[in-house]
């Protein structure tokens, strides 16, 4: 059993299902920690918002997040702090241990298309009513176009920071207004006097702050040997001025500053990190999850690459890492620290818990708790069977439920002791009996003080055939095979399919055989030898020969006759 306090995200494997409902592979969904909206926070009098060591990222303690007392810390500040901490940690790590994580601020407003109110106005960032009577949209797509028009007059360009991008979700059910830089989005006009929304998005008016997101980095590797500094280069649609760069080493700081023009400015997060691999054979550019790197300009007319990196023009997104992200609490940390970053604190307990859990909260401020558990149904049954309970009547009407499972001390496997925890103390209800964790216990007669009953797993009940009956019932179960078929039906279906295929193959064979026969026949008609025909030819030639011979003979006789004339 392991316990982790904090917040974590693990990469998960997602099955790829085709239209027929069959699994055709798996896809890795990278780990992502997305906090709630980050309200700017005032730096307290001691100048420290997050104490040094209060937070631990993937096992590395983070230094303090501090500032001038009275200043406000924004989401971008927090993300910058996290990124600088990651950078600091990475500087002390070997290549293998480097944290492949990046913090960034994301901000988007998601509303259901069904909740849009086209008769209402809309203001974004106090831009004045986007919607007025002259351009009132009638569909979500029109609203999307309207927002994009206002914020991106030169459409098609990568939106500079501070802009807004609107789009519809893949299923068309949601309208999303995103702030690419993560800066705050202000939605207006104000709510009416009753507090009802007065804008076209149908949401409460106000300032929506960005969220801090921790995602694994994707890194795209470019081969240094292919780099040709004589050519031009565009990255993410931005032309890079390569004049004055003669070596790849010079290229790195140039790209770093060109791609991240706003380093140091709090409002714009770092978008790309550029570095050379340690053997200087690869140029590595990070691509935060979900944003591929665009390389240009367009390929030469013959299709060959025409940019300085020597790569075909297009989008490149790196390998998804299997990195997990664990943001835990250190010794001076408590859940309030994590909640400042927009994360709620979790306690993850992996493995079987042999006892009941009790959550005890101390302190003054309010907190909310939820408990989730993923358990295997069979395991819970099994674990119940492994436990031993005692029901002890402390009076005629009251009983105690005692867990008397013998537990093994992990330190000394021989040291067995009885648990003895009183898990419940209740009044006995003769009608309902005693219920505990799915167990039911009833007494046919009234209990008396001092009565004791022991409940233990029935390990010797080997004559019980209920499992076998369940196995036998699998024969007619329709839950095993997709498409609600029984095993036999599926099997028969397979045989049917095989039979059909066999039959089709036979028919195809017959048809092809006829084609083949005709071809052979046609060929033999031309090239084949018929003995009768040859014999007839032979006779004909023989006769022709004989006829010729006869002519020669006749001629000879004629000559003879002529020669004999004297």
């Amino acid at each position: 059993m392991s316990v982790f306090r904090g917040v974590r995200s693990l990469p998960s494997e997602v099955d790829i299902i085709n239209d027929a409902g069959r699994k055709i592979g798996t896809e890795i969904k990278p780990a992502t920690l997305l906090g709630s909206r980050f309200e700017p926070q005032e730096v307290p009098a001691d100048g420290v918002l997050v104490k040094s060591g209060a937070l631990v990222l993937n096992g590395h303690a983070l230094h303090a997040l501090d500032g001038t007392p009275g200043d406000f810390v924004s989401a971008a500040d927090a993300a910058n702090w996290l990124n600088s901490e990651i950078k600091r940690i990475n500087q002390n790590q070997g290549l293998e241990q480097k944290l492949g994580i990046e913090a960034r601020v994301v901000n988007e407003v998601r509303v259901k298309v069904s909740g849009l109110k086209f008769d209402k106005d809309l203001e974004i960032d106090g831009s004045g009513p986007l919607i007025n009577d002259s351009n009132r949209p009638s569909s979500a797509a029109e609203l999307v176009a309207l927002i994009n028009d206002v914020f991106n007059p030169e459409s098609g360009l990568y939106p500079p920071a501070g802009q807004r991008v609107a789009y519809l979700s893949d299923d068309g059910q949601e309208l999303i207004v995103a702030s690419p830089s993560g800066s705050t989005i202000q939605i207006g006009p104000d709510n009416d006097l009753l507090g009802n929304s007065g804008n076209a998005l149908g949401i409460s008016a106000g300032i929506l702050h960005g969220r801090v997101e921790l995602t694994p980095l994707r890194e795209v590797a470019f081969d240094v040997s292919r780099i040709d500094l004589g050519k031009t280069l565009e990255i993410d649609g931005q032309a890079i001025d390569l004049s004055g760069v003669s070596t790849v080493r010079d290229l790195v700081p140039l790209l770093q500053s060109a791609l991240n023009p706003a380093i140091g400015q709090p409002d714009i997060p770092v978008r790309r990190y550029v570095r050379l691999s340690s053997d200087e054979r690869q140029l590595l550019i990070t691509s935060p999850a979900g944003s591929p790197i665009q390389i240009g300009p367009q390929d030469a007319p013959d299709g060959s690459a025409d940019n300085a990196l020597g790569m075909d023009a297009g989008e490149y997104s790196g390998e998804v890492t299997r990195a997990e992200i664990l943001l835990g609490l250190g010794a001076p940390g408590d859940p309030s620290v994590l909640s400042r970053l927009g994360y709620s604190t979790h306690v993850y307990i992996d493995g079987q818990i042999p006892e009941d859990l009790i959550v005890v909260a101390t302190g003054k401020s309010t907190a909310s708790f939820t408990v989730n558990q993923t358990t295997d149904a069979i395991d819970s049954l099994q674990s119940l069977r492994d436990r031993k309970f005692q029901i002890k009547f402390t009076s005629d009407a009251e009983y105690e439920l005692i867990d008397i499972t013998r537990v093994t001390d992990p330190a000394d496997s021989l040291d067995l002791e009885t648990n003895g925890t009183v898990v419940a103390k209740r009044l006995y209800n003769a009608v309902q009996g005693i219920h505990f964790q799915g167990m039911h216990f009833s007494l046919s007669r009234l209990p008396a003080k001092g009565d004791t009953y022991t409940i233990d797993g029935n390990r010797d009940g080997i004559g019980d055939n209920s499992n076998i009956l369940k196995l036998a019932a699998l024969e007619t179960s329709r839950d095993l095979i997709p498409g609600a078929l029984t095993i036999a039906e599926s099997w028969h279906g397979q045989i049917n399919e095989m039979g059909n295929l066999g039959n089709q193959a036979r028919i195809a064979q017959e048809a092809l055989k006829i084609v083949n026969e005709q071809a052979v026949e046609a060929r033999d008609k031309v090239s084949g030898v018929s003995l009768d025909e040859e014999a007839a030819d032979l006779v004909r030639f023989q006769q022709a020969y004989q006829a010729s011979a006869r002519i020669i003979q006749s001629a000879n006789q004629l000559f003879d006759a002529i020669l004999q004339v004297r």
Partner: protein
Amino acid sequence: MKISTSQFFDRAVGQMSERQISLSKVQAQLADGKKIVKPSDEPDRAGALLRIRSMVDRQDRHLDALVAAKNRLGAEEAVLKNSADLITRIKELTLTASNDTYDASNREVIAIEIDGMSEQLLSLANARDTQGNYLFGGARVRETPFQKNSEGRIVYAGDETRYKVAVGDHRELNLNRSGTEVFGPIERPSGNPVVETPDSVSLFEALQDLTVAIRSGDHDKMSRGLGELDRMMNRMTFNISEVGTDLHVADMQTAIVEETQLQLKSVLSNEQDLDYAEAVTRMQKQMLALEAAQRSFGQISQLNLFDYIN
């Protein structure tokens, strides 16, 4: 059109081998006795056939289960009947002993006999079936259900599991009854007029108490014992009738399953069995065709222009 010599031979061989193939198919059908030798012959029907065949197999299994269930229930019935006989005999003896004309030595003889009978009853309660499993121990079939504990009292070590066996597509038959249901505790009036709810006492303890009462000539306790014997008898009768019902159900279910199977088999036979008359005729026809092909080939291939050229 010219037919070359090799083409003539090829074609003749091809035609004859086709005849051979269809002949061998009929032959396979005749040997198998079935219309469909492999699924590709008639894919749709082959699927249906397999379905019916697996249904027939399932009915076979139900019949096997019924036979086993009947054996088991028969064994239980025998034990229950013997137990009932024993209890009747104990009751007779108790009635005799309660006669005032019997003196201590007479009663001792009776007590000894009842002791022997309760031993007998204990061995019946621990009876096993043909597989060596205890009949009245619930699912704990390897544990002697009624055994003496350290205090010398007979306690039940089985559980209350009632297991069932599938004897039809939607029919399960009850196979056992637990030890408590048959040889479990017997009600005994508490003797306390205030408390209405009666006490209970183990069946074997009740018999022990009875022999003690007979030995000491305690008529009150003897009549209490008679009441308890009545209740034991009632319970035996109840269980016997339950087993009887189960056996009757098993018989009826056997008839139902057999009927179903007969019907399924006739469907199966209609679907899969070969019509021999038709198949034999077909074979005759194909043999004739093959023979004609062979004979005509023999004759035609003889024809050769060279024969006529000298």
